[in-house]
């Protein structure tokens, strides 16, 4: 069924090379996008919980905007709209970024900022789920503000939300496919291109599906390993890896009001 992938393409490669190149772009978007999202998400999530009402409102604004506009619309805003809104010279400069970077960078930025809003909500939920006594004990020892967040609150909150972050990891690699709408030749785009060129739709989509499945499995297993690695000695395992289905559904996670299943 997949032998078509070994045939030569018009540009002298094999179709499987198209898929591999697509996988490369998908991984690049997901990996770098994740770190952008994680960095911003942690900062915004903390912002949601600080005393200062101005910072709190700012963090809330960020979350509401980036969470409530579909990622595809955000993709168009970064790619089509932003260069037009900037001063002409700057906009023109952006439009002249050579391919593939001209589409990759807006896509990366878009996925990072979108996912950051979701991570921020997880971080906030994790912080709010900590017992009040932790704050008080830190305060009683003279650890306040930055020191309390750095040494007491964040280390615990982040451990708590590892299971719920699993679905954000799976979310960002699936959302990389949205980048095909602005012309990034990632895995789904390549699969469609192969299907269009060879009419072997089963083989093309099937191969892409298998690759996505493998990615999901790797992402899930990685997060399980992280969960195990950062588990605090003496505490009960939050959730054992049961069976082969990778269900990272929130109801059973320790975070009460975390956001739900992503796709």
């Amino acid at each position, binding site marked *: 069924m997949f032998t078509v992938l070994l045939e030569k393409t018009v540009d002298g490669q094999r179709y499987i090379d198209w898929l591999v190149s697509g996988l490369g772009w998908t991984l690049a978007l997901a990996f770098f996008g994740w770190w952008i999202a994680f960095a911003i998400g942690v900062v915004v999530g903390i912002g949601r919980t600080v005393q200062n009402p101005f910072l709190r409102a700012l963090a809330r604004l960020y979350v509401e905007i980036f969470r409530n506009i579909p990622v595809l619309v955000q993709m168009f805003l970064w790619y089509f709209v932003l260069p037009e809104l900037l001063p002409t010279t700057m906009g023109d400069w952006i439009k002249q970024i050579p391919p593939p970077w001209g589409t990759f960078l807006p896509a990366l930025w878009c996925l990072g900022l979108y996912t950051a809003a979701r991570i921020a909500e997880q971080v906030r939920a994790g912080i709010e789920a900590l*017992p009040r*006594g*932790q704050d*008080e*004990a*830190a*305060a*009683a*020892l*003279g*650890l*306040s503000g930055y*020191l309390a967040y750095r*040494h*007491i609150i964040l*280390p*615990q909150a982040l*451990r708590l939300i590892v299971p719920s972050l699993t679905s954000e990891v799976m979310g960002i690699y699936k959302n990389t496919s949205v980048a095909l709408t602005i012309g990034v030749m990632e895995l789904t785009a390549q699969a469609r291109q192969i299907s269009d060129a060879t009419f072997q739709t089963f083989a093309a989509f099937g191969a892409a599906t298998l690759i996505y499945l493998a990615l999901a499995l790797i992402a899930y297993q990685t997060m399980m390993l992280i969960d195990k690695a950062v588990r*605090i*000695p*003496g*505490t009960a395992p939050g959730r054992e890896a049961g069976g082969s289905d990778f269900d990272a559904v929130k109801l059973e996670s320790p975070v009460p009001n975390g956001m739900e299943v992503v796709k």
Partner: protein
Amino acid sequence: MQQERTVSPADPSPMVVVEHLVKRFGSFNALSDVNLEVAKGEKIVLCGPSGSGKSTLIRCINHIEKHDSGRIVVDGIELTDRICDINNVRSEVGMVFQSFNLFPHLSVLENCMLAPMKVRGLAESEAHQRSMALLRKVRIHDQANKYPAQLSGGQQQRVAIARALCMQPKIMLFDEPTSALDPEMVKEVLETIVELAQDGMTMVCVTHEMGFAREVADRVVFMDRGSIVEEGDPSRFFRAPNTERAKAFLNQIIH
């Protein structure tokens, strides 16, 4: 109100002065016009029915609760909203909580070392030395590398005491340190606190352990409905309280 002062030790300036303290939670008066003085080296036991404001009082002394009006002076520093004052006071005041509040993600040793290093700026080796010495003092040094969840409640509370002592506080506040413990573990924690008292530490302890109060306290302060109702020498207070409310309370906890 009964005024029955015990003789204060050599140093005349008090460790804690609380004057006309008022604390409200919404429309509920948790503390109304509370006055209390704690001399250096003095050991005070606070008791009273639940909701009487005794925990709120010692939480105000550490500024974990913000008071609404009145004055609190700890070791000469008045507690205002200025954050540096609050942190100055907090690092002089050690606090032990009912529910231990150890940091679960840090080992016993790390729990002790964190604040001395980050707040006091101690070098790691020095913090390590001090922590181990104090863990030895509460007889739990052989568990130094375990995590809180791997210890019994009594052990956790002794770690919490050592953690507070690592900041070399001038006064220790205990908020019902034994009431979350299984009965068989109460003794080991009380013994630790007694030893600390014998070393001359100033302390305010919220507790209903009367044997402990008799043994350690210089003064018993009885609170009810947000006010200090009666205070006095423990042997006299437990034998023959002056007020009806204290009588009723003592009857309840004995039976």
